[in-house]
């Protein structure tokens, strides 16, 4: 069984498949298994605890995860590596909220097809409605549960 294993957690430098160093986020997971690319999920959260949690949930499903701490870094990474299959972002972040990030992704011709899910510690209907209207595929209440994330990824990552 041929597998390609990426580096595991590295807080400041990241070696992507193809040897590209981004220095942007923490990457965990296997890039390929049996010649098939593993889905790559970008997790965005300014909380180190929540980044670790969402990365843990995604990793348990064998997805490749890159975790960054801001919308700005997420966009920088998407610019360097557009092969992201899904974005899961916190709503409430300083400078650029998850909603702002969602809008930027949906406004981009290169990125708009990437499914974006929003996580929030507060399930505010107006907030949820505006995210879904803007094209989010899900609005998850934090702390996110494994089964919710698994259902989401199973639906959107084929």
């Amino acid at each position, binding site marked *: 069984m041929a597998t390609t294993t990426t580096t595991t957690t590295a807080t400041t430098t990241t070696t992507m498949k193809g040897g590209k160093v981004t220095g942007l986020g923490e990457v965990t997971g296997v890039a390929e298994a049996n010649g098939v690319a593993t889905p790559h999920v970008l997790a965005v959260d300014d*909380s*180190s*605890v*929540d980044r*670790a*949690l969402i990365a*843990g*949930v995604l*990793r*348990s499903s064998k997805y490749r995860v890159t975790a960054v701490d801001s919308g700005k870094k997420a966009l920088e990474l998407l610019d360097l590596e557009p092969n992201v299959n899904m974005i899961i972002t916190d709503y*409430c972040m300083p400078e650029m909220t998850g909603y702002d990030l969602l809008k930027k992704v949906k406004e981009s011709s290169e990125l708009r097809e990437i499914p974006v899910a929003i996580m929030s*510690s507060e399930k505010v209907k107006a907030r949820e409605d505006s995210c879904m209207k803007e094209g989010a595929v899900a609005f998850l209440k*934090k*702390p996110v*549960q*494994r089964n919710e994330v698994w259902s989401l990824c199973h639906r959107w990552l084929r």
Partner: protein
Amino acid sequence: MEVSRLQRRYIDFISALFHEGFLDSQFTELQHLQDESNPDFVSEVASLFFEDSERLLNELSRTLDQQTVDFKKIDAHVHQLKGSSASIGAQRVKNVCLTFRSCCDENNLEGCLGCLQQVKQECYLVKNKLDALFRLEQQILATGGVVPIMSKD
């Protein structure tokens, strides 16, 4: 047998933590994410929480010490602390944060100062409890045993 004794002690200890409200089902959720490829997942996430909470508590102390108290800023910090405590299942910390936010909404300085002391105390207590729990886990593993995982129900 030593392993069984330690495992029973572990079960009693963690059961008490749930019963006394220190932990909730989210902690069990974290335990389920721990496996051979990430054997220290729970303790790593807990460490991140305690680093984060120390930073936030210091910020809160500083902000509450100002001549003019910025309740919005305090609320933002408490919101963060509430979120991260909920994420690791530190229920008592989370509950104090809920009260703390109400005091912020009311611009209640005395209430906020009381909540700050309380949340510091709860963070200190849960840290000590989790440190003891992780030490027990290491003892079980050192004797060749498996750490029991509580069901969520």
